[in-house]
Structure formats: C-alpha cells, structure tokens
C-alpha cells in the first residue's frame, strides 16, 4: 500500500514540475546561504583552534615579561633551576609568515608536530640546518631559509613551527624568548616567581585563543545573516508546500475515501517531504560550498585586517558541516510543513474542500495577533534585554513580527483604498512571497543604513584621528633617535606613538601615551567628559578611555582604574574609537615612560604643513636612512583603513544581494503557481469580454501595486532594524554605539530595484496569461459541476 500511495503522491510532482522546482530551489537556496556561512565559520574556527593548539594559548598558563618585552635566556635557565616546569617560545614574522620556535624536549605534548610521534627525526629537528614544519601553502610563501621543509597539515595556517634555536637564528634574535609555557604539573617545592624573576608575570589559561574570542561577534553576525537568509528561503518552502497541499486536497480526500488510513497518509507525506528535503539539502550544500569558496578570501582578508587572525584560504568538507546542512534542510522543511500536517490531521474525510476564504480569514486574525505579540516582545527586549544573544533575539522577533503583520496590513490598506476585490483576493496567495520581499528589503535598508552610518562616522573619525601629516617607523632605538633629530628642525611637532598591551579592569586593553599637544585637544572628540579633561590629563590627574573600555568594564567618569599596584587614576573622558576591537587607556607620556621604561617609541606622527611634507619625507630618507615603506602619509593610512573597512562589509553586502535575489525568486514562483490556480477566477472575466492581453496587464499592475505597498511598509521595518543594529547589536558586539544617519536616495534606489524585481517576476506569468489557449479557459467551465 505504501508504495502505491507514494507513487500517487509523486505523480503530483510529475504533473506540476514548476511547483517541484519551486520547493527544491527554495529549500536549496535557503540551505545554501545557511551552510555557506557555516562553512566559513567552521573554517575560521578550525584555524583559530589550530593556532591556539599550536601556540598553547588555550590550554596552558603563560609567563611573559611585565613590560611586554623579551625574556632573557638566563631568566629561563634560572626558573628551570628553581624547579619551574616551563618551556620557552619565541615568535616572529618572516615575509608575513608567523615563525614559532619551541623546545621539543620541554614543550607539553600536543603542541603541533613537536610531540615527536612516529616519523619525526629529533636529531634533524634540533641540529644542523634544522627542520621547519608548516602547511604546503605556507612553505611556498617562505623565502629560502636553509632549513629542511616538512609539510605538516595540522599546523595553523600561515604559521611555521621549528626548534627555538633555529627560530632565534632565522629571526635574528639570539638568546631571546617571548614567553614561557607553564606545564600543568609543577613541583610544590618550586620558589615563587616573584623571587626568581620579579619582572615576569603569569597569566592563566584563556580557554580558547584570543582571536577566537575577538572574532566571536563577527561570526555571530555572519550566523545571524545566514539565519535571516534561511528564513527568507523557508518562506518559499512554506509557500510551495502550502500550495501543493491546497491543490492536493481532492487527491488526499480520494485516497482516504479509497482506504488509506490518515496516520499512514501523514507518515507517507512526511517521508515524501523528507526525501525532497534531502535532495534539496544536498543541492544546497553543494551551492553553499561554492558560496563559501567565493566569499572565503574576503572573509580571510577581513579577519586578518580587523583582528590579525590567519585563516586557511582553502575550504575543507567536514562531515559535521554537511550533516548539519542536511539537518537544517530537514528541520526547516518540518517547520514549514508543520501547519500543513496540522491541517491534514484535522481535515474531515467528507468535507475535504473546506471554504478556503473562511480558513484564511481565521488564520489572518491569528497571524495579526502573533505579529503584535512578537513586535511587543521585540520592544520589551530592546528596553530590558542584555547581551548579544538578547540583541539577536530582539532582531528576530522584530523581523518575523513585521513579516507576519504584512498581510493584515496590506489587506487593511487595500480595503481603505477601496481596491478591486480581485487585488485583495490575491494577497493571501502572494502573502508569503511578499513577506519574503519585505524581509529582504528591510534587511537591505537596515544593513545598508548601518554600514553607511558606520562609514560616515568612520571617515569622520579617521579625519580627526589621523591628524599628523606623516607617520614614520624606525627599525631600532638608534634610528628612532635620528628621526627625532632630523624632524625636530623641520616638523612643527613630533608625536611619539607609544603603547603596550595589558589587562586593565580585567579586560585585554592597550595603554597608549599621548603627548600634551593641540593635535589631540583639537581633533579627538569626547563622547562624555569631565570639565577641563585635557588639562587634567596633562597634569597627570587621570586617564582617558575609549568607548569599548567604558561599556565593557561598565566604567563611569570619575571611576578609578588601576594601571599598576600603586597607580590608580580616575576616568576623565570617554572617546569614540571605531575599528578598534579592544579597550584603550590614554595616559600622559610622563606616566607611560615611568610605568614602562623599557618601551621605546619606534613610531612617530609628524606634524607639518601639507606643503612641507614632501621635503620632510625626503630629509628623513636621505638623512635618517628611512625607506619609503617606513613612511606613510596621512592619505595612504586613510586609504588603507577604508579598504579594511570596505572589506569588512563585502560579505555582508554579498549576503544582502543574495537574500534579495531569493526574495525575487519567491515572487516569481508564487506568481507562476498562482497563475495556475487563478484560472477559474479569470475565465469568467475573459468570457465576459476582457481580452487575455488586458487581463495580463492588469495582473502585472496588481503585482506591482502589491510590491510597492510592501516596499513602503519595508522602510520603517528596515529603519527599526538599523536602529537595533546600531544601538543594540553593535554596542554588544563591538562595544561602540554609532549615530544613525538616513540615506533617502539609497532607499529610493532600493525600492526601484525591488519594483523592478517584482515587475520582472510578474512579467513571465503575465506573458503566459496573455498567450494562454482559449481552450484552457473554456476548460474551466467544462470542469464545473
């Protein structure tokens, strides 16, 4: 019996291939966007994990110099003698590739290939020219180093592992160590660290790499976009399944009347949908792989630019990834079909053709109530919710609530406008496609408003911050002194750039020194500040902090910050610091030099008039021996910063466009399927004298009117989304709040695009209607009984 029923169910799709294509393509697109994003996230996380495992960041405590500098070999030896089980690490870069030197005899097991499993030649690793371990792609990028190259796929991307002695030689840092890995089992008799090396500090294991934590918000953003795209795709799937069910009602009733039990019928329809979902899911995963492969280079560049995270440029097909893709395709189909199965389970055998209008009216009331509930929930979460997840939950409630509110709103608007009944009747059939369009447009308005507001703020911020005409970098302290000597005669001001990374108020932060100069006073704008903040800072009576530190550490003006055991200073002001991922504290130059006497300024901002900048540049080149690469003018830095910024949103823009394309597809498919079921409505009008061409034109116009109304309603929803992104999600994810600007021209262009998409989608069904054989219209009457 089951095969007979399954064959009969399948025969429906054979007779209605367009609906089958709609269902498969809708689900495949939804899965593709979701799994594409997941593939990127999985690749990034795997790279972070590999890096954390290679460098021991996640699992072991670390000892570093308090001043951020190198640890002398002698200190390491002293610690070993005092009983400390520690292993030295040195890091550096050659041609952009990260070189990590480890000592295999003391390093804990599991760090990269140095656990010396079968096939590792310890002698070759330690002595002679030595061995370097890296991925093949990384080895290809390295110049000739004189060491034996060994391909090791497990090593983190863009990273080379080798013995510490060989790394010191390659990096030209003989006798230096950057940090010590503290092994878990330490002898109880060892002497305290403060006795042996008071200038060293121990940090506890971080439970995951720094990079993984820093990039969490970025990946959460991508995931949210993936989910949004998936939701838009699900609207198509829901529409296709719902339409197929409506059209199969007579078939279902016949099958039940002929002896197919209801339970078996529901189970078999579920099997049928599961098979379709698996096929569409497999197609979607393949498409997702392509999307991920196309977007990965941009994501990798963004992560490198923003967070310094190295990502493998190659995608790996992970079973967990494609299995989760299939699972979400199945889960999404189940969600989309749940209503249909509910309706099927309650469908009476004898009253199979329940009046649809009444059912839809009842559904419309429930939908409006659910929309109101979701929008209220969204408002409640916006006011009282805390945390990034609450922010995304608020966005979800806002978008779904807005989408559900669309059909009742459209019906109300059309009723108030006294639109023809036929236009109003089209709303339920098209509602899912229009909801998909609404979501896609709102996402576009919201995200583009956020990105453009961010861009405006960021450009203004760069203009303020990059006030110096020339930025120079010295190779060592001697060259730095020469730069100061050469520039002091020619520049209006020399502003040393001094900073160290430290933990402040329990958070990773950068301590930055600011020389008391008008450059800072004139250009840096406070978000909030005490009166006379700059003068009080100059007198060493406090510090300035960036917005990230202010929000994350929940500090306020006047709160004291501990910079050293005996140095606690109040917060005098808070400044915007867009593009920075961590907190920042500004102290006076004098305080900085007293706290960190070993840190030498190697970078400088030089103030001069724009006309004299080229002469200053030439003098630094000839007199201080600076290379062109060591001197960057203001415009170049701005261009670089903007390019990093633009790349950051390349992925967002691409996903935005894809989501809009999916919505366009939803409209096309809805109109095509509607065209088939609307024949009984059109045939009498045609018979009364309206030509097919005129009917087609009216249909086209109707689709445009509905799309235009949807576009108008999408604007406030999009602006609400933008506000939520700027005022809630960004604050939680990045630690800064951005002002919101409006871009009416962009919105007009987007509306025009949406109307064009709707018109193109409506064109084909209208063309088909204009050429429909009269026999098919007559068939409507002959089938009437």
């Amino acid at each position: 019996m089951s095969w007979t029923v399954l064959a009969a169910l399948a025969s429906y799709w054979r007779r209605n291939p367009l609906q089958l294509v709609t269902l498969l393509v809708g689900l495949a697109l939804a899965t593709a966007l979701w799994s594409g994003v997941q593939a990127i996230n999985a690749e990034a996380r795997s790279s972070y994990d590999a890096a954390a495992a290679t460098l021991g960041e996640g699992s072991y405590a670390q000892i570093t110099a308090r001043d951020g500098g190198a640890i002398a070999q002698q200190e390491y030896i002293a610690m070993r003698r005092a009983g400390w089980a520690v292993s030295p690490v040195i890091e550096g870069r050659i041609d952009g590739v990260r070189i990590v030197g480890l000592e295999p005899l003391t390093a804990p097991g599991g760090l990269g290939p140095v656990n010396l499993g079968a096939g590792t030649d310890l002698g070759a690793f330690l002595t002679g020219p030595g061995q370097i371990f890296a991925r093949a792609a990384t080895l290809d990028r390295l110049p000739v180093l004189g060491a034996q190259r060994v391909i090791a796929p497990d090593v983190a991307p863009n990273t080379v592992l080798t013995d510490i002695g060989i790394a010191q030689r390659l990096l030209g840092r003989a006798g230096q160590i950057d940090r010590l890995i503290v092994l878990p089992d330490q002898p109880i008799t060892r002497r305290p660290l403060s006795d042996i090396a008071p200038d060293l500090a121990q940090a506890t294991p971080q439970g995951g790499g720094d990079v993984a934590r820093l990039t969490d918000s970025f990946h959460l953003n991508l995931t949210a976009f993936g989910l949004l795209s998936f939701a838009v795709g699900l609207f198509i799937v829901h529409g296709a399944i719902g339409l197929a069910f409506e059209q199969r009602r007579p078939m279902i009733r016949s099958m039940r009347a002929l002896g197919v039990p209801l339970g078996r019928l529901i189970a078999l329809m579920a099997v049928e949908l599961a098979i379709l979902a698996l096929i569409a899911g497999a197609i979607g995963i393949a498409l997702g792989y392509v999307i991920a492969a196309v977007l990965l280079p941009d994501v990798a560049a963004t992560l490198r630019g923003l967070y310094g995270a190295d990502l493998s440029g190659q995608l790996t097909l992970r079973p967990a990834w494609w299995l989760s893709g299939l699972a979400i395709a199945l889960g999404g189909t189940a969600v989309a079909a749940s209503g249909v199965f509910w309706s099927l389970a309650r469908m009476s055998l004898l009253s199979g053709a329940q009046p649809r209008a009444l059912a839809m009216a009842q559904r419309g009331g429930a939908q409006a109530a659910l929309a109101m509930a979701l929008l209220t929930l969204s408002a409640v979460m916006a006011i009282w919710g805390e945390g990034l997840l609450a922010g995304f939950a608020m966005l979800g409630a806002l978008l779904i609530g807005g989408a559900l509110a669309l059909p009742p709103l459209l019906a109300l608007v059309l009723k108030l406008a006294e639109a023809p009944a036929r236009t109003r009747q089209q709303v339920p059939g098209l509602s899912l496609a229009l909801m998909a369009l609404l979501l896609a447009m709102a996402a576009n308005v919201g995200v583009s408003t956020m990105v453009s507001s961010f861009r405006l703020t960021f450009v203004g911020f760069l203009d303020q911050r990059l006030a110096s005409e020339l930025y120079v970098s010295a190779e060592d302290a001697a060259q730095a002194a020469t730069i100061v000597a050469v520039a002091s005669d020619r520049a209006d001001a020399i502003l040393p750039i001094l900073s160290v990374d430290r933990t402040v108020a329990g958070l990773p932060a950068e301590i930055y020194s600011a020389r008391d100069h008008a450059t800072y006073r004139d250009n840096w704008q406070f978000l909030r500040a005490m009166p006379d903040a700059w003068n009080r800072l100059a007198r060493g009576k406090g510090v300035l902090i960036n917005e990230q530190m202010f929000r994350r550490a929940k500090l306020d003006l006047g709160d004291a910050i501990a910079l050293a055991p005996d140095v606690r200073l109040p917060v005098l002001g808070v400044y915007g610091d867009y593009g920075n991922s961590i907190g920042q504290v500004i102290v006076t130059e004098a305080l900085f030099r007293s706290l960190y006497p070993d840190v030498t300024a190697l970078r400088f901002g030089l103030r001069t008039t724009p006309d004299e900048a080229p002469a200053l540049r030439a003098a630094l080149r000839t007199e201080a021996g600076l290379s062109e690469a060591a001197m960057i003018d203001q415009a170049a830095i701005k261009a670089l910063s903007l390019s990093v910024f633009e790349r950051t949103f390349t992925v967002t823009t691409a996903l935005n466009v894809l989501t809009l394309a999916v919505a366009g597809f939803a409209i096309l498919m809805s109109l095509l399927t509607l065209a088939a079921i609307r024949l009984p409505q059109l045939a009498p009008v045609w018979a009364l004298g309206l030509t097919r061409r005129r009917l087609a034109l009216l249909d086209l116009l109707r689709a445009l009117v509905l799309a235009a109304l949807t576009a108008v309603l999408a604007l406030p929803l999009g602006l609400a989304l933008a506000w939520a992104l700027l005022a809630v999600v960004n604050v939680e994810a990045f630690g800064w709040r951005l002002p919101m600007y409006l871009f009416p021209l962009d919105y007009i262009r987007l509306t025009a695009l949406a109307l064009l998409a709707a018109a193109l989608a409506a064109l084909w069904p209208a063309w088909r209607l204009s050429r429909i054989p009269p026999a098919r219209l007559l068939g409507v009457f002959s089938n009437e009984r």
Partner: protein
Amino acid sequence: MLLNLQDVFKSYPGTETAVLGGVSLELQSGEMLALTGESGSGKSTLLHLIGGLDTANSGRVAIEGKDLTPLNDAGRATLRRGTVGVIFQQFNLIPSLTVAGNIAFQARLAGRHDQAHDRDLANRLGLDEHLHKYPEQLSGGQQQRVAIARTLAPRPKLVLADEPTGNLDEASADAVMSLLRDLVEETGAGLILVTHSERLAARLPRRLHLRSGRLT
C-alpha cells in the same frame, strides 16, 4: 448476511432534526438495491455510514457480521480498501494519475491488483483508448466509467454507488447502468444504488425509498 443495519441514527451538530432516524436494513450477497429519495432525505449519509466514511450516533452497522461502530479510522480504511467499494458522485479520481493508474489504484491498495482484470474492465467500459490519458482530458461520462472500473477492480463484496449517472444524459446513463449491473452481477457482490431517477431504480430488483431519514 452481507449487510445488516439496526436502528441507525445520525444527526449533525447544530441541526435539530436527525438526518437518519432509526434506519434498519438487510442485504444479502449478490442482492441489488435501489435507494431513492428527495434531496436531503439522507440517502448519501446512509451510504457514507455503510461505507465507513462516517459514523452513526447510535445503532449498529455490520458488514459480514462485523460491526463498524467501534472501528477507528485505520479499521474503517481497511474495510474501504478490501470489502466495500464506493462509486462517488464526484468521481474522486486522482488527477495526477492516468486512467490506467486510477483503475489500478484501489486494487493495489487492497493488494489484489490483477492487470488482466483491469484490462478486461477497461475494455468492457470502453476505456481502452484512454488508458494513458489524465482525468482532465476525459468527458464526464468517461470519468464516471473510470470510477466504476476502479471500484470494481479489487472485486469488493459490496458496491455502493452514489448517483453514478447524475452527470450523464439519459442514453449514456442507461448504458453505464447496464454495464454496472452486469459487472456487479458477475462478481456476485451486493449493490446499493442511490439515485433520484425512478426510471433507473426500476431496473434493479429491490427498491427502498428514504423520506425524512426513515425507510419506507
């Protein structure tokens, strides 16, 4: 005894009067019965109760001695698959299956598909040339004949026909009626024919009239 109805009552929520008010009826195997009555007299409701498509409020409906009243949906579906065949007024053909697929459908459900029997039925009902067509490509009369073939293909013990010629002209109705009678007779099944037409009812050996939910 093939069919035994005892004091069957049926009413619908929201209506004051019962559609069937205590109907009792017996039918032997091979017996043919015409059931006539005005519109709304309860003919179709009675047919639905016998076919297990609906359940009585009280009374007993038994086929081959088995009471349908306590059966659940699956039990009644088993009855419809194998024992009782219903020819619906609206044909209830499956639009996406061909004529051949529709004829074979119920026999396949019952696990009694016999291709030679299907071909014989199609041949006798004049459907030979239409086996690969879809229902929408057939006239009303042709669709009715497909519905008859489908019902008879699994060789049911009781055939219930609800106005099977309601959409046909007089000549076509006579032809279809003759065929139905002959085919049922050959299988030895019982037949209950619901019709408005006194002329068609007169062609069956036994007649009952339903008035206001009671048999006369």
